[in-house]
């Protein structure tokens, strides 16, 4: 049933995109996938909307020029429900059936990691948006030839969080609560722990929960007894809001800290007072002049605010277009080669893809504090 509805929706949207893009031979097909249903659907919808909006803008401006020829861009998007197995299936479909030249997304590391073999076989590059786990592009010290990303990675993010907590917030005892069933959360927890301890701090409680849990009071009661200075919560905003509320109910008054799974309008509406005064590491500063134009265009088109993912997928599209132009032809293999060493000025910062890691090098992290229900930029912070 779910599939039938989805298929209908997708066919319909494809038909619409197809009509707009005109002649078939001069279009470049680009795949996108992510969660359009389930817990992370907010972000998936936001990403796909952004991709569609940007492609439309390119097309109305006459398309993009690759190797002296004008092309229109066509987005083909599938829902993988945030599921890793489904991610592999939709990538097979995108590469095998739809013959896309490149794929944008997904946002989740857990979904980006398993698709590598399919990409390699089909020779189609993928640009992940907010997938921050190191294994997305590098596995066992070897770079995956067809996986790229536009965001910084978890070791860096964890180091930033630990450094900021220790040096700027003067925390010496930290407690961690993390999602044991999630690669992203586990990675952040690991790198926070390593870096915080290296600085001389102690982890006084290291507790976990399982994805889908809604009650965290047993773990929080334990954390309360350990009397930390700060609580690190490296997971997504739904659980952040629930656990923050429950922490305050149990009388925990500590500063909460998190990563890029936090920023969302819903965090503020669900978390309210409980997340007030918390800090998190983010990919960008929402008040940065560079992002205002995109933010306004998105709002005007869709009538709601963009989420974090939109900014990153925006830069993934820029990278894709720059890559196509550099490659000079519409070919996945050439495109993957073209991405290596490319430099693009994105709205989230300069993106210079390292040939060794396929990560953007030297991207600063932004520290954001929640003040009066607003995300207030504190500073750009780089970890040593």
């Amino acid at each position, binding site marked *: 049933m779910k599939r039938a509805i989805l298929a209908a929706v997708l066919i319909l949207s494809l038909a619409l995109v197809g009509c707009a893009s005109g002649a078939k031979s001069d279009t470049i097909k680009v795949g996108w996938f992510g969660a359009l249903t389930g817990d992370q659907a907010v972000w998936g919808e936001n990403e796909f909307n952004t991709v569609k909006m940007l492609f439309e803008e390119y097309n109305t401006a006459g398309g993009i020029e690759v190797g002296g020829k004008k092309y229109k861009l066509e987005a083909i998007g599938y829902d993988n429900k945030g599921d890793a197995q489904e991610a592999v299936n939709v990538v097979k479909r995108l590469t095998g059936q739809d013959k896309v030249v490149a794929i944008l997304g997904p946002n989740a590391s857990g979904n980006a990691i398993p698709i590598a073999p399919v990409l390699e076989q089909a020779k189609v590059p993928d640009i992940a948006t907010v997938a921050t786990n190191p294994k997305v592009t590098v596995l066992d010290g070897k770079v995956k030839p067809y996986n790229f990303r536009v965001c910084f990675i978890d070791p860096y993010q964890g180091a930033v969080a630990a450094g900021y907590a220790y040096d700027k917030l003067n925390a010496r005892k930290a407690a961690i609560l993390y999602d044991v069933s999630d690669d992203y959360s586990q990675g952040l927890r690991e790198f926070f722990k390593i870096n915080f301890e290296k600085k001389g701090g102690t982890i006084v409680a290291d507790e976990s929960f399982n994805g889908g849990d809604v009650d965290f*009071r047993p773990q929080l009661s334990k954390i309360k007894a350990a009397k930390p200075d700060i609580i690190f919560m490296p997971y997504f905003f739904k659980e952040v809001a629930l656990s923050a509320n429950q922490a305050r109910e149990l009388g925990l008054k500590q500063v909460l800290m998190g990563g890029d799974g936090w920023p969302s309008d819903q965090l503020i509406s*669900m978390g309210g007072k409980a997340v007030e005064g918390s800090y998190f590491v983010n990919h960008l500063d929402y008040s940065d002049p560079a992002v205002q134009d995109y933010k306004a265009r998105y709002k005007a088109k869709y009538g709601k605010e963009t989420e974090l993912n939109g900014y990153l997928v925006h830069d993934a599209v820029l990278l894709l277009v720059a890559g196509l132009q550099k490659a000079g032809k519409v070919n996945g293999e050439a495109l993957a080669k073209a991405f290596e060493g490319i430099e693009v000025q994105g709205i989230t910062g300069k993106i210079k893809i390292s040939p060794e890691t396929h990560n953007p090098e030297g991207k600063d992290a932004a520290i954001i504090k929640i003040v009066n229900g607003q995300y207030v930029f504190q500073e750009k912070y780089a970890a040593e």
Partner: protein
Amino acid sequence: MVQFLQQLINGLSIGSVYALMAVGYSLVYSIMNFSNFAHGGVIMLGAYFGFFALTLLKLPFMLAFLLASAGTTLLAILIERIAYKPLRERQAPFLYFIISAMGASILLENIVIATIGPTFRTYPLVFERTPIALGPLAIGRLDLLMFLISAVCLGGLIFFIEKTKMGKAIQAAAYNIKACALMGVNTDRIILVVFGLGGFLAGIAGVFFGMKYTVYPQIGNITTKSFIAAVFGGLGSLPGAVLGSVLLGTIETLVAGYLSSQYRDLIAFVILIGVLIFRPSGIMGKNTVDKA
């Protein structure tokens, strides 16, 4: 000691969420001998009904509660009529009921995703989040209310089943529905009443769940735990469902609090399996072989 008491309070509070959901499973099981997995979907819709009653209709809390329960009562009856009645009339094997129930559950989830949308929503603040402080212990206001309302509902349900004529008929049907029908009892009506009662409780459970946590289309998944609690306590037995839920909640909490939160589910479920090996019908279950 303080931490132990606090963890015990946490456990009871989690257990009472499970209990409200588990009773619905047990109730239907006692009559129909199958696990009504659509119950999770009904709970989820109960949470949405309550949410919209509070936000769109701006009803006072108690009215929203009643409206949500009325909605889920009707929904549960509707599901019975559409998904189960045709199977009953054809005397289909129980496996078919379970498959039909799962289908109904997936259908409900996807209807909500397609119409209301996949994002989660937050209930307006009905009760202050500041807990009642009992010395160093914190007891949530909502938890307390939930405990009270659950107790009243479950008490009312047990009274209904033990003391009323309809209740007697339900008991008889639970014992042997075919013999019951032969004695001239309208078993079709009994089944409707049972689904209605289960639906009513699902509405209450849904609204509480939404208020306590949040509302999203996958709430139904959480009922897996309450189903397990119902099995643990003894499917088909109402006091068993309550006991099983409270025990599961407490065991989970204590394992997370004292052994390891990483292995919470693992250890908690090993304990459950252990119990079921020695008491296959659950703690208070009816000791019959044919009910599977």
